[in-house]
């Protein structure tokens, strides 16, 4: 069930204090962190906002300070709008370093929910890669570590479970994208005590509705949704078409918000992670976590409308 996001006074003060160090960043974090919809992680009960921040492509900016600062501004706007979960991977080039740079500039917001991945074929090197990732982020430990694209998943999951048991990690997950290896994902969801599964889901890619999302509800597994806009293609495709007239009923003003509201209105979805390097877009995305969500009838109308275009 969707709930309102609230942070305590200490966390709010930490966010504000963080903004004070941001000389040169025009958009300072406001004292008024907006209320956003949240969902609980079934295994822990911790509430996280239904919109997170992905970093695939957008945060892979190399050593370019100007672009790193732009990404920091995106993170600042994200935290300022009540966002918490940032997702990355060793596969995403310099994205982890960019996130670490931004977190440092933002004085490490305490509300951060850090989600990273292990992605290496040699299982023996998993812990070393995780240590390296922690160094890039500048965090003592991750909230969530996922086995990326099921690469050597059996061995890596054992490592992650051991880390969780040792208190070095809060949650364990697996990921896939673009509809790949869904039957294997289902097997893992059934056989392993994972906390999260990350899959692709959007108004046109709805395979996961058949088995994975119901299974996640049944097994009490949180769901992160990647590629909500098909890497921007979906928004570009829709850009020339008018929004349906009923979008105002759910408070959506743009195609991006409509797409996100469709995703987060599925009861099994915990969080969608659109990636962007644009401050206006991250604000637009975070607005989708406010106001009403779609009921089943409106979800059906959305699918029909988009599929007709």
């Amino acid at each position, binding site marked *: 069930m969707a709930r309102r996001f609230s942070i305590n006074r200490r966390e709010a003060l930490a966010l504000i204090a963080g903004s004070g160090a941001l000389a040169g960043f025009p958009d300072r974090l406001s004292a008024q962190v907006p209320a956003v919809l949240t969902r609980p992680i079934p295994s822990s009960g911790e509430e996280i906002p239904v919109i997170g921040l992905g970093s695939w*492509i*957008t945060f*892979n*900016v*190399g*050593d*370019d300070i100007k*672009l790193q600062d732009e990404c920091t501004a995106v993170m600042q706007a994200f935290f300022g709008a009540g966002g918490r979960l940032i997702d990355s991977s060793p*596969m*995403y*080039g*310099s994205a982890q370093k960019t996130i670490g740079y931004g977190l440092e500039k933002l004085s490490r917001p305490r509300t951060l929910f850090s989600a990273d991945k292990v992605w290496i074929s040699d299982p023996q090197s998993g812990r070393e890669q995780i240590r390296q990732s922690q160094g890039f982020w500048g965090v003592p430990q991750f909230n969530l570590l996922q086995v990326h694209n099921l690469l050597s998943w059996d061995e890596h999951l054992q490592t992650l479970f051991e880390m969780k048991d040792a208190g070095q990690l809060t949650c364990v997950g697996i990921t896939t994208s673009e509809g790949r290896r869904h039957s294997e994902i289902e097997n893992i969801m059934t056989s392993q005590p994972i906390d999260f599964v990350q899959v692709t889901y959007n108004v046109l890619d709805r395979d996961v509705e058949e088995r994975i999302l119901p299974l996640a509800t049944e097994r009490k597994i949180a769901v992160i949704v990647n590629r909500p806009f098909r890497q921007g293609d979906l928004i570009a495709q829709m850009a020339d078409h008018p929004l349906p007239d009923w979008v105002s009923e759910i408070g959506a003003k743009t195609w991006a918000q409509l797409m996100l509201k469709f995703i987060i209105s599925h009861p099994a979805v915990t969080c969608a992670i659109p990636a962007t*390097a644009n401050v206006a877009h991250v604000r637009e995305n975070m607005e989708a976590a406010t106001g009403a969500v779609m009921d089943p009838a409106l979800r059906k109308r959305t699918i029909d409308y988009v599929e007709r275009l």
Partner: protein
Amino acid sequence: MFSPRVYFRQIETYNLALWPLQILTLLVGVGLVCLLARARPNASRIVAMVLAALWLLVGWAYLWSHFSSINWAATYAAYGFVAQAILILVIQVIPRRTGASLPGGFAGVVVMAVAVLLYPGLSLIAGRGPETSEVFGIMPDPTAIATIGFLASTRQRYDVLLFVIPTLWCVVSTITLFTMGDSIWWVPLSMCLAGLSLAIDKRRGA
């Protein structure tokens, strides 16, 4: 994996960091083309020696030191460029018998000349401005294509091995540009294929 903006901005930064080395490598490229065109004794050995040095430079300065920061696979490409430099030395420079000019090999020299003189102008055609120009000896594409042109103009024992890495690079580059939606994505592979078909044609006739 990376956006076109980041990719081309990185080339811009790299070009700026090396400026005015581009002028020098361009002049070196023109010199190599003239040397091959005149078919002087030992010309292919000298050209090969310079090409080997430039493969090392591009592999280290661009692929290893810059591109790998946004594309982890570029590290492996950098190893490939080092391997190509070593192969050029072993196959073209070290043997006592220098590479022979192929009859009709002038067409290969033309491919090399196009890579040296015209390739940097492609960024203008693509509407990106001169800051992102890809110059021979500085960037991988024109260096790989010029090497294929060189190989199409000469003949040396085992030199067929030297086509592999430049061809692979041109395929990778074309895929990269195509994925980013760049308007000149087809150029690296087209020029590579032109050089390869010339090489095959001349060798069949030789």
